[in-house]
């Protein structure tokens, strides 16, 4: 089978026979959700919202698929590509490796991968400037803190999460150079993403050391952090999606990643979605702090002004927030 396939591919490349893959004029886009599931109140749900917005505005239809296991990824992508879905949007860094295998086989199909970079001519990689959003969260935390001590809880100790931490610390120190930032990581294995009990215990330990604002970038562990913060009378900062509604009045803000916008854009542009790396930063509103009725009482005019000033400065390049992943080091502690 594979010999036949590679023979066919070779023939196709030589241009001896026309490529058989049909390219329908009106291809429907497709959206593939990662293991977390469509309604995870976070990352995947944001992608779903983007797709639904596109559907409501254009009246178009799209295919969707929820991954149930690791092994399905490649098969699902091939199936969608073969049935003519275009573009195919995948959420989550776990699709990176699979796309490197699948994308070259379907050169006429556009793929979009969110949260990781894949170097293929027909793949758009959407990556976020988490350090910029976290910087703003740091400013807000430093201004809202009464004790002068704030804290950060990361999930698994990996460079991506260090990027959140580093941006946050920079924001705090830029606002209040005397402020102390306590940093904890839940663990060094994937289990660290799903340990709300340890997240809650770390939060209490940080409270014991004087912290009154905690920023969680820890997946499912974050649920425990937000809960413990609410129980202990601290303020928490959520991540990825707008989590302000989870404990109204006790979540200062959430560092949102505009996953919905990137799905919406890809669907809107369809097959014309440009390949290459698309950086979603403050300038393109790819990262932002959630402001809604749930946290409005916590945000003063002073804070709003400071955030606006910092946003303008970052966008203009006046403030350069260091990205931990460029050199695996953070300039401030």
């Amino acid at each position: 089978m594979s010999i036949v396939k590679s023979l066919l591919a070779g023939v196709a490349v030589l241009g001896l026979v026309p490529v058989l893959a049909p390219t329908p004029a009106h291809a429907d886009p497709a959206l593939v959700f990662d293991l977390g599931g469509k309604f995870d109140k976070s990352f995947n749900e944001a992608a779903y919202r983007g797709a639904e917005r596109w559907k409501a505005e254009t009246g178009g239809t799209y295919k969707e698929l929820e991954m149930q296991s690791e092994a399905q990824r490649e098969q699902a992508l091939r199936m969608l590509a073969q049935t003519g879905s275009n573009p195919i949007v995948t959420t989550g860094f776990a699709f990176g490796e699979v796309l490197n295998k699948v994308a070259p086989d379907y050169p006429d199909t556009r793929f979009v991968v969110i949260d990781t970079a894949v170097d293929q001519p027909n793949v758009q990689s959407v990556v976020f400037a988490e350090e910029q959003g976290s910087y703003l969260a740091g400013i807000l935390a430093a201004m809202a803190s009464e004790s002068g001590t704030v804290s950060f809880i990361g999930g698994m100790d990996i460079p991506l999460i260090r990027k959140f931490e580093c941006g946050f610390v920079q924001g705090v120190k830029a606002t209040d150079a005397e402020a102390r930032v306590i940093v904890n990581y839940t663990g060094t294995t994937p289990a660290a993403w799903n340990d709300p009990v340890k997240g809650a215990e770390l939060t209490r330990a940080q409270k014991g050391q004087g912290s009154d604002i905690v920023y969680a970038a820890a997946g499912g562990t974050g649920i425990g952090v937000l809960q413990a913060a609410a129980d202990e009378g601290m303020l928490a900062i959520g991540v990825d999606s707008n989590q302000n509604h989870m404990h109204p009045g006790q979540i200062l803000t959430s560092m949102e990643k505009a996953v919905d916008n990137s799905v919406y854009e890809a669907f809107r542009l369809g097959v014309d979605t440009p390949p290459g790396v698309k950086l979603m930063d403050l300038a393109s509103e790819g990262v932002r702090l959630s402001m809604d009725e749930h946290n409005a009482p916590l945000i003063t005019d002073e804070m709003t002004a400071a955030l606006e000033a910092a946003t303008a400065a970052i966008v203009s390049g006046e403030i350069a927030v260091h990205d931990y992943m460029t050199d695996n080091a953070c300039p401030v502690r």
Partner: protein
Amino acid sequence: MDFGTVLQIMDSALRLMTPLLLACLAGLWSERAGVFDIGLEGKMLMAAFTAASVAAVTGNAWLGLAAGIAGSLAMSVVHGVASITFRGNQLISGVAINFLASGLTVLLGQRIFQLGGRTPSLTGEARFHAIHLPFAQELRGVPVVGPVYAELVSGHTILVYVAVLCVPLTWWVLYRTRFGLRLRAVGENPASVDTAGVSVQRLRYAAVMICGVLCGLAGTYLATALSAGFVREMTAGRGYIALAALIFAKWRPWHALLATFLFGLMEAVANRFPSIEIGPLTVPSMFVNALPYILTVIILAGFVGRATPPRAGGEPYVKER
């Protein structure tokens, strides 16, 4: 390090100890009767899920507790049928339970709540809240004893007190009652119990069910007291740590309390001091996190002497013909 910090760490250790202690006692009951149980993790996970689901739907933590125990008992029945009635391999049955719970909780959770395997967050009466013991506030002013009573003894959820009370209860039943004597005998020499005309199977089932109830308490504590809801794989290996503590405690209740408290304390210290600085040396957080396991190996190898498991452990009992 001042007195307040020490108290906070001890307080945290007590909370972290509770699920370990309950699971450790659960394992103790089962293994004392000669049924190895490495499915503690799966039972806790199942209990956490059923407890959080029922508490979320009904808004009542006590119904959640009942459901948690029921969920864990269902897993115990599977273990019992496989390893007692059908004389299957107890280790394999335990592993199967761990896998089953890991998959089933996410599958059911997704089917029922569509939150990616999570349950909705529990609020108000759906959770167990801290109990403030009488006079905690009044005694706070008394030096040493006051803060210890107010911070350490008071202010835990009811399940913490239940877990601690389970220790003397387990000791008393196992060492001071006829049922306990027979149960221990079944784990050492089932043939002699059988000769005395007592059913080995029934005793082993009883032990496995008690194990299920205790794991149910542990899982419920994780999902409805320590946190507010179920998250997939939320037991995060605590069932295995409880097994290590059980060996460490040489299958004895009071030692189980000490062993699990030590593990809780280690974790609390690691949470509080991610990296410890000793002069110019900085001990990295990975090392501090690994300390409980390193300590287990050292203590088992050198200090507690031989840890001898119940002699008939792991062997299905076959009546002689």
